[in-house]
């Protein structure tokens, strides 16, 4: 399973109020779909992927983690660094 599939499955498992049609570019954070607790779990998942703590006060969370595409990009960028 790819990391993207893993993330999609994780988000689906939270039983959020997702729109009928959504894809990797749909807004999850700015739209308010991901609530505080879901965001907390998302950060834990990202930390597991990159192997280090993520301080969410140090970047623009609403923009940098807004969609699945954004999240995967964030993981890629922070893994590399």
């Amino acid at each position: 399973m790819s990391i993207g599939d893993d993330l999609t499955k994780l988000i689906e498992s939270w039983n959020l109020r997702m729109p009928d049609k959504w894809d990797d570019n749909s807004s999850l954070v700015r739209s308010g779909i991901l609530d505080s607790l879901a965001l907390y779990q998302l950060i834990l998942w990202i930390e597991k992927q990159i192997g280090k703590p993520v301080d969410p006060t140090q970047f623009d969370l609403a923009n940098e983690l807004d969609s699945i595409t954004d999240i995967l990009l964030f993981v890629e960028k922070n893994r590399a660094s």
Partner: protein
Amino acid sequence: MRNTYEIVSYHSAHKRQVAKLQSYLWTQDASLAARYFEWKYEENPYLQTPLIYLAFQGRELVGMRGFYGAQWELGRPREVYSVLVADDLVISPRHRDRGLVTLIMKAAFEDLAKRGYRHVFNLSGGRVTVMGSLAMGWKSAGALEPIDLRSGTTFHRRLREFLTQKRFFWRYAGSPLFHSTAEREPFARFDRMSRLRANGSILLACEPRPDAMSELVVRLGHDGRIRHIRDREFFAWRFRNPLGIYRFLYLGDSQLDGYLVLKCAHPGALEPNKVKIVDLEATQPVQRTELLEVAIKSGRFAELFAWGATLPVDTGPYLSANGFRPADLESRAHGCPCVLVRPVSPKSVDSDWVLGDRRLTDLANWDMRMLYTMAG
């Protein structure tokens, strides 16, 4: 069943339901919760009408966010601003992860903008709240860097840590049986010492002295950083917090040369029972050191806790030299606790992140003390 929520402003008829919902956050003691609510929102000297936004599903209260009144001074010449503090965010477990926080906050910000508020602060949010707030456009001014000094409780602490990892037994780890006397009654030794005059000129006391404390604050002056007003009215109200137990160290007589305030949680509060340094003032650095020395030695607290980020320049090194170490490492790694700020308007421009002549997102512009927050 379709989840339709109605967001309404608080009315006194909701008081009992609010206190019940807050059993998740404040205390499971209903009468203590009611007293805390009355103190924080009804007796607040800076806001006569509670500004609380409630989410109902049918007749059931399922979520809320409160804003309590606070008054801040900053700049040169000094200016005074009323900036509300967002607090008490609770969503009933069955209604979490349904976008309810976003709904409540949207309604709250629309109403606050109509009432003329330009900014809000959030000063004691936990990691989950901070995460949700950042997603909704709040910014952190900086981390408050918790530090603590631990003594004499290794056995009990390790026993609790062991129990929390064991099936079935984890639920008993919080029992008083697994806490040392110093943890169960943090001020017991301090109170015995208070009958003595601890150190020539320092008096240990259970009661605040709002007149003398506020007079000292005025006499010491203000460097222009953002801080809460500490006048007689503030002190008189602040130490009536029913979820806190306070102790005071006074240096000087009728006119104070310094004071230090310690707090531990009421036994009924859902808060770890550590002793916190919530405020400290003195005319000279050496007097600050004297007050801290007496606090450390007279209390022998299991855990003495402070925020390191905005201490006076001489105080941080003194505390480090006396055994204080970075605390709450998990929270620290995630930038918590922190000062969160946000303009009320959803479409903020750069100038909206400034209050008076101070940029809100720079911790160097803050003289932040635990006493200004509900952690203190």
